[in-house]
């Protein structure tokens, strides 16, 4: 018995050590980026002192500012469109869940299971040919918004759908019973009830958009580089320390999102 507990505790200690090692593995690359963003010299191999010069350079770099703007516009526009379309389809899936909707499920999962690169080049090939034939849909922010909405729709739809499924179905009947017309049911019952789902769907869409590189890369035009595309270009041209600074800001945004989600979780638990 004694021997067994001893063995257990040594296994546990090994696991704890492994956990911390994994955490180091996960955060080391990010930490290096953050650290070097404050490097005084432009060496990528050694720290020579602390400075904020790369952040100052960022502000003066028009390309970066434009890329930052593009990223925000793209994320915002695509998330709003995807929220409306995805919400409708999520509700349709719920309301008609007793029908045979297999084809719809396949359609909805398609953007999720398709490899990024296939997704990106299909859109690119399509937009290029479509533009050659009609003169419309020139590659740029417009085509990027279209592509982003396409991969955001399924996530919104599935989040909204699962929220509806979690509701007591008699609530819909109670709303009808209490004199709510179809339009009033949407405004006073459905939208308020699924509000938490809509908020998280919006934030997920936004994050997916900012996070995406491959699909943006293939659908972008010459003027519509987003931050990830700019960073990619800068890396390809030869590393500039400025990248560390932009990357650090983006990591900071993610850390903030993580902190918020943690607080949210805590509040719900208590």
């Amino acid at each position: 018995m004694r021997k067994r507990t001893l063995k257990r505790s040594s296994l546990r200690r090994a696991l704890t050590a492994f956990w911390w090692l994994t955490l180091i593995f996960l955060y080391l690359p990010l930490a290096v980026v953050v650290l070097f963003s404050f490097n005084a010299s432009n060496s990528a191999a050694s720290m020579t002192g602390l400075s904020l010069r790369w952040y100052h350079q960022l502000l003066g770099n028009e390309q970066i500012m434009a890329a930052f703007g593009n990223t925000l516009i793209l994320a915002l526009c695509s998330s709003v469109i995807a929220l409306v379309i995805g919400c409708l389809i999520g509700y349709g899936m719920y309301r008609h869940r007793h029908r045979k909707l297999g084809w719809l499920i396949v359609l909805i999962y398609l953007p999720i299971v398709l490899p990024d690169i296939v997704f990106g080049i299909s859109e690119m090939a399509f937009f290029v040919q479509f533009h050659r034939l009609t003169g419309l849909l020139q590659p740029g922010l417009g085509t990027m918004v279209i592509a982003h909405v396409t991969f955001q729709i399924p996530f919104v739809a599935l989040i909204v759908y699962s929220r509806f499924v979690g509701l007591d179905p008699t609530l819909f009947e109670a709303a009808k019973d209490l004199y709510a017309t179809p339009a009033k049911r949407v405004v006073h019952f459905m939208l308020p009830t699924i509000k938490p789902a809509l908020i998280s769907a919006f934030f997920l869409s936004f994050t997916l958009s900012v996070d995406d590189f491959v699909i943006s890369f293939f659908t972008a035009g010459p003027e519509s580089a987003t931050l990830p595309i700019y960073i990619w270009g800068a890396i390809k041209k030869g590393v500039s320390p400025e990248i560390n600074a932009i990357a650090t800001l983006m990591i900071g945004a993610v850390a903030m999102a993580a902190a918020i989600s943690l607080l949210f979780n805590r509040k719900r638990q208590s």
Partner: protein
Amino acid sequence: MTDLTNTVNTADRAEVADTASRDRRGASSIRMQGLRKQFGRDSIALAGVDLDIKAGEFFTLLGPSGCGKTTLLRILAGLEEADDGQLTIGGKDVIDMPPHRRSVNTVFQSYALFPHLSVRDNLAFGLRMRGEPAAERNRKVAEVAEFIKLGPLVERRVDQLSGGQKQRIALARALVCEPDVLLLDEPLSALDAGLRGQLQVELQRLQKRLGMTFVFVTHDQDEAMVMSDRIAVLDSGIIQQVGTPSEVYEHPANAFVARFMGHDNLFAITASEDNWVDTGLGRLQLDPAEQRDTPDGWLLIRPETLELGGDVPADYNRLEGTVEERLYRGSRIEYRLTVNGHPLTAVAGNLGQRIHDVGDRVTIGICPEDLVRVAA
């Protein structure tokens, strides 16, 4: 008996008021004709229901699960469309009217309180949807909260309420709309026995005070008898019997109703002549009013009408039996007897008379007027 005529009178008066002016809580009568409903290809929920419910009546739809009672209620609410048939509420044809245009409100079994709203906003929901001005709304909500004695609950969030509280709020939310008809779909089934009994009484009092037409659905025959003015017993989508609680309990229309109302002492009639019938217990004499031409059907003996031991009056039926089991229930004592090899249950009030022991041979006296013939 006097009580019964009273209710009918109030109902009649309410109906007159209904047609004359509808400014106050106008109770409405309901008329159903040939209502049919089928789910899928072969599941018949309602097989042609004709039913009249009087204005201001506490009416109960009683039956086992799957008998069609809930479907009928949902058709009244407009939440389900009948395949065929007619439905008028307060003399108005409502069969094609969507639920949000019917002056009918429902208390749902799951309560269906909106989770995103406070108790106050839940109560005001129907009034708001109907477009009543805010001042009017607040007044009515305050009134109903007072009436149902909700007190400080009004400020709570829905997920902070107990089952009993949710139930009252669901009721208040429906009542505040002052509907012509209130529908209640097993609203007490999720509550524990004590609370349930208390709310049964409260609901019945409330209905009498408001004079509103209540249609109540339950599978519990005790609940139905305690609360209702009249009961309709349903089975397999067909109405088996409509009547007052005493009619349904004492004179069930058929063996199904008798069994559903809790009667165990049913004996197949093998032969009959004038007012005599043969059953497994032996030959028994009935009241001449129960005389039938055919020897079919069942004989119903209510356990509380049996007289055990002592002298049996000359015009009574006399049987002999053995006590197999005795269940002491405080206010009464239940005996499981065998008579000619057939089980028979008897219930005696605990009035200080002799208590029979298991194994005792006892004489059983049955007044002919207490015997009821029941159709198959």
